[in-house]
């Protein structure tokens, strides 16, 4: 493998940081959403379920465009963020994280929800009869038992973030050092004559990262399942 230039290293670090932020903010929301979908019955639950899964079926470019509409400087949420907190998401690193988080959200919700559904409801009942209220049960029984799913959500989500392209380029653009993550850099490299070597190097990194993520997920998942006696 060719050695990386400082700019390429910067791209790698930027990609890792964008993905980390996307998971850091996205995962707790995904867990909450999965819990609501798995445990609560309310009108509009089906609609929530559909909206959550929308980014999975929409073309990523459309998701990016919708984000522009909502979080753009003149978008309903974007204008509030800008006026009240001075935060601008469009064409920024934070915006790239947001786009990644939205794109991986359905994957994370699904993984967490599957593991929540697999929990024996009798254990939560037992905790209840032992004096644990709902928040207490959530943190001492439900989430620990769902931990393999939560971990899988985090790792697979992270790996997916590293490869997010369409929504990121649409919403955050392709600014080297700010929003140019690995796939965007590979794309740009392929656009210039003689960029194949650079693209190949970056692709190898991408491949390595994805593979590491999947292997880690497998390994941690096995250990957690052993700890849970499965």
């Amino acid at each position, binding site marked *: 493998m060719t050695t990386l230039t400082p700019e390429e290293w910067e791209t790698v670090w930027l990609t890792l940081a964008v993905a980390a932020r996307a998971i850091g903010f996205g995962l707790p929301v995904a867990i909450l959403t999965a819990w609501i979908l798995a445990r609560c019955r309310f009108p509009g639950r089906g609609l929530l379920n559909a909206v959550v899964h929308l980014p999975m079926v929409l073309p990523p470019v459309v998701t990016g465009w919708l984000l522009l509409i909502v979080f753009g400087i003149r978008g309903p949420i974007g204008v509030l963020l800008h006026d009240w907190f001075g935060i601008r998401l469009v064409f920024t690193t934070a915006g790239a994280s947001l786009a990644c988080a939205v794109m991986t959200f359905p994957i994370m919700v699904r993984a967490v929800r599957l593991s929540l559904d697999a929990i024996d409801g009798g254990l939560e009942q037992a905790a209840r009869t032992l004096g*644990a209220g709902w928040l207490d049960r959530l943190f001492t029984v439900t989430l620990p038992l769902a931990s393999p799913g939560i971990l899988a959500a985090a790792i697979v989500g992270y790996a997916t973030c590293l490869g997010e392209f369409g929504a990121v380029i649409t919403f955050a653009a392709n600014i080297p050092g700010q929003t140019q993550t690995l796939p965007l850099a590979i794309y740009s490299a392929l656009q210039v004559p003689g960029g194949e070597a650079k693209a190949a190097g970056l692709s190898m990194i991408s491949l390595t990262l994805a593979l590491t993520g999947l292997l880690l997920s497998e390994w941690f998942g096995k250990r957690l399942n052993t700890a849970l006696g499965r």
Partner: protein
Amino acid sequence: MSVSVAIRHRFPSFQLDIAFDVPSPGVTVLFGPSGSGKSTIVSVASGLLRPDSCRIAVDNAVLADIGAGIWLPPERRRAGVVFQDSRLFPHMRVAANLRYGMRRVPPGAIGFGDVVDLLGLSGLLDRRPYTLSGGERQRVAIGRALLAQPRLLLMDEPLAALDSARKAEILPYLTGLKTALRLPVLYVTHALDEAARLADSLVLIDEGRVTAFGSVQDIAGRADLPLARRDDAAALLLCEVAEHDHPRALTRLMGGGTALWVPLLNLPPGAQCRVRIPAREVILASRTPEGISLHNVVPGTVRRIAGDPDSRSAMVEIALPDGALLSRVTPDAVVRLNLSLGAPVLALIKSTSIEAIGT
């Protein structure tokens, strides 16, 4: 003090309408066939199922009275539950499982060390639930429920998932708990041997209704209940060890207001002990026979005679000063002995047919 339970609930295909009142502390066995509604009673008493209407009171504390708008949720009810399937938390070691409920209530009378000793858990504390045998799991589950300092302990077929060897291993712990802890316990089972060993009070349940309830000695000694129609029908007497006759290898028990000789028991004089006297082993006589091996000739009076549907046998209930015996005889024997209500009769019981079944 007492436990009083009244529940009415309509399921799509089944209606539960029960009420009973039993003394507390003590073990009350809810006995009946599968699907008779016993487990529903536990779900309602624990608060996990809210019925159409109910009133549940334990020692003057009202846990639920739907008519009066009282419904304590399970987490504030302090009703410990031992489920048939243990439901130990798989991600915690045994010690953490035991402490789960304990950490969530104010310190009470039941201490961690006591429970560990009573249930023989000291060697299991560091183990994970999935490494335990079925019997060990149930012992941990019982300990966990007890350490939550329950006002009422509910046990829903706790031994039903165990094979007979495991059952035999855990039953002595249950009898031990009975004497060590002064707690009201509702114990659901469809196994007669568990009921005979553990029950202080018995509530018979069938198709969502209470057939009869009362002390175990009174219910087991009635000829007119479904229990008496079983092949293994037997009277139960709560006895005290009076004396041992070592040269003759016999023990004299006092129970039901009468004396009973049984093969030598390994219990000190004064100890409590319950005996089961199968109805088919009890012979009736009008005068004392001579020249036979028999040790027990118990006088009583005929209180009830119940024929079975195909009238091949009759169940005779013999009143003792404080209890009753059952004897299964042929209708012909009833005629020959001229048995009628209130008539004096002698019950002949081989000492070896009397089963001592724990305390």
